[in-house]
């Protein structure tokens, strides 16, 4: 394997959870909600998936339980925010903290360990897939083939989320509620119902990212194992203004930054700097893109004023 194909392979692998989380954020963003709780959703799914698959010795039951747990978390967030009227962002932040602590607590109750389940629980993992024919193509095969099955599901999910948002009735309603809830309410669409549904879907997709980390990328659960991937995903989604395909591409860029960080470890560079690299990259990317967007908006305003002067 060449160095380049190695980095690209790593990029795809490391991007998988970020892509899924970014898609999750994209769904709620289109409904007008910022999903700051992706971190919590992924973490809960990662733990429950490991525990249930270890108990039942069934991969499928483990996965289903993991995804169900993250959907359950979204329903709690929705109830607190939309029924009890607590601020959504505050609810999400509290939920992140509660789940970071809560998962360690549950892990300790079950295994007596506070850091990792490795070696104690015999949990199941998802298989890797070697794609026939493609795997034999030089370079391309090395990059694209041999990933975990969830990575391929993530690619399908990019199309699926795009299809949901832009081709289905539900998607139209999600986008309309996100842009003007009053308009939707005036034709009998309950915005609260749409918010619940989009958050639950978001929980499902984010949960896939969570179980990938603990049942594919690794084969155990470790405390706080998301390490900010949920927030990176949120940034990726925001840069793309909630568009699913753009969000996924940005997530891929963050994955590249992570892969690059891992790669340069070989060159005896300060480990803390390497850990910080993807985040610095995120800040840089957001700054540059925001700068460009603001300039475009300014130009747009100037054009509007010009048009108005001509009209007068």
């Amino acid at each position: 394997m060449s160095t380049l194909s190695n980095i690209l392979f790593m990029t795809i692998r490391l991007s998988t959870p970020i892509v899924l989380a970014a898609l999750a954020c994209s769904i709620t963003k289109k409904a007008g909600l910022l999903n700051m709780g992706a971190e919590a959703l992924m973490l809960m799914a990662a733990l429950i998936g490991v525990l249930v698959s270890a108990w039942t010795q069934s991969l499928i039951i483990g996965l289903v339980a993991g995804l169900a747990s993250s959907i359950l978390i979204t329903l709690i967030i929705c109830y607190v925010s939309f029924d009890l009227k607590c601020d959504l962002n505050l609810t999400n932040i509290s939920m992140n903290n509660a789940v970071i602590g809560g998962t360690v607590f549950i892990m300790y109750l079950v295994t007596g360990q506070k850091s990792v389940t490795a070696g104690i629980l015999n949990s199941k993992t998802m298989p890797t897939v070697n794609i026939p024919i493609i795997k034999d193509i030089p370079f391309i095969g090395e990059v694209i083939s041999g990933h975990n099955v969830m990575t391929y599901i993530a690619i399908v999910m990019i199309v699926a989320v795009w299809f949901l948002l832009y081709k289905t009735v539900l998607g139209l309603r999600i986008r309309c509620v996100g842009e003007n809830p009053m308009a939707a309410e005036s034709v009998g669409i309950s915005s609260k119902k749409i918010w619940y549904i989009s958050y639950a879907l978001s929980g499902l997709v984010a949960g896939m990212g969570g179980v990938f980390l603990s049942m594919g990328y690794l084969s155990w659960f470790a405390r706080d194992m998301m390490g900010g991937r949920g927030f990176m995903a949120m940034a990726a989604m925001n840069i793309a203004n909630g568009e699913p395909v753009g969000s996924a591409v940005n997530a891929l860029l963050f994955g590249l930054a992570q892969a690059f960080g891992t790669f340069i470890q070989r060159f005896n560079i300060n480990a803390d700097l390497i850990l910080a690299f993807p985040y610095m990259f995120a800040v840089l990317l957001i700054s540059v893109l925001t700068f460009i967007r603001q300039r475009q908006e300014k130009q747009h305003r100037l054009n509007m004023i010009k048009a108005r002067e001509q009209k007068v």
Partner: protein
Amino acid sequence: MSKEVLRMDGITKIYSNGFTANHDVNLVLHEGEILALVGENGAGKTTLMKILFGMESHQGGHIEVNGTTVKINSPLDAIALGIGMVHQHFMQVPSATVAENVTLGIEPRQGSVYDKKEAIKRTQELSDRYQLMVKATDRINDLSVAQRQKVEILKALARNCRILILDEPTAVLTPQETEELFVQLKNLKESGISIIFISHKLHEVMQLSDNIVVLRAGKVTGTLVTKDVNPAQISRLMVGRDVVMSIEKDDPKPEDTILQVRNLVYYNDENVKVVDNVSFGIRKGEVVGIAGVEGNGQNEIAELITGLVKADSGEIILNGKSTAGLEIRDIRDLGLAYISEDRMRYGVAANLSIRENIMADRLDRKEFRTGFLYNSKKINSHVDSLIREFEIACDDQTQPVRMLSGGNIQKVVVAREFSSGANLIVANQPTRGIDVGTSELIRKTLVRKSRNKEASTLLVSSDLNEILEVSDRLLVMKNGQIVAQFAKAQAVDEFELGEYMLGIKRMTAEEMGDLL
């Protein structure tokens, strides 16, 4: 006469604060009829239509649609009964297409997939059938206001609406767009749809409607057949005082000019010229009133003088200095006080105390300081004396303003504005929605301040009693221009005033005389 489709019988609406918006209102609508609902602002037209569309409840009376008594508890009930409403503010999703907006909630589908082709086909068919000239595939973002209004009509038609309510539809349109809309509304009428059209523009009412219902202060003052009446008759029913309240005052003895406004022009956010080359002056010792149907530029004049919005051209000279480029604070320091139409937004900070609200504009004065600390004793006694003088009913000066009644909140505003030492008071609807006693106090103070030469006043009001009794000189605005000037407001005949306000008559420059 054709079939009766709607009957509103004895509708009465009393708001929780005791204000009667509609009193025993009757209205009948026939198939294929265009009914104009006319009246001044605050006459209860919109409230009546909101009741019909299920957005407001009502206390008395009942509604019949196609001969059966119905209960309309929400807009969805109304839509199900075939009633559609085009609001002044459109309920639309800007980044979605016309077809998506029109079919939202009643989407054509194949399984759970949105059938875009069918949606476009249906929308385009409707648009073509009624010649609304809207393209189904356009995005709302790219449409003009007039086209967006057509989208609202399409939304109603797509839901099989038989009764279409339009709330002042021409307010946002150019004359050409208005003509186009009227042709389209007549097409709708031909196909049997009944239309209720809210307006206070009489020439439009005469041009479009079959019948007219006139409201004044929540009551029906006339049900007319359009072809049998003339605009002056409608105007008499619309404008008038139920009780004449009079203020006794001497004639003013105006001295030198305090405020000069020259050739003022202002375009609003929708690029409409709402103030059109306005010039006038105010001299020391007089109250100048601006009358007019709301939305003819009076409010913008007040906001331009106070610096809340900036003029596109023209100049404003206050006490000898141009206010161009000055901050609001600087303009106030030149001698301006402002009683805003929207007291909760511009008048007070609701969560702060009476004391803080009154002191807001004068905290940096030397007299309230000792060294670099505030002199609490001085501040307390200053605020207490104002509370006594203006009879503000409160526990004490630390009470948050939001706990007070509307009238007392306005008293806090006037206590500050009347005691700021300004020599020009801009009073924009100063007594709207507040009790009789407080209104009386504000009106009398405005007159007194002008008589003892403390401060002149520019009064903008849609309360006829107020504008005729408090003002010395009276200007009338229509379509952003001054169309009449009366030297003595108390002597003005209210019906004649109504004809100027509604654009039936207009003075020549000679008749108006010197505005400055």
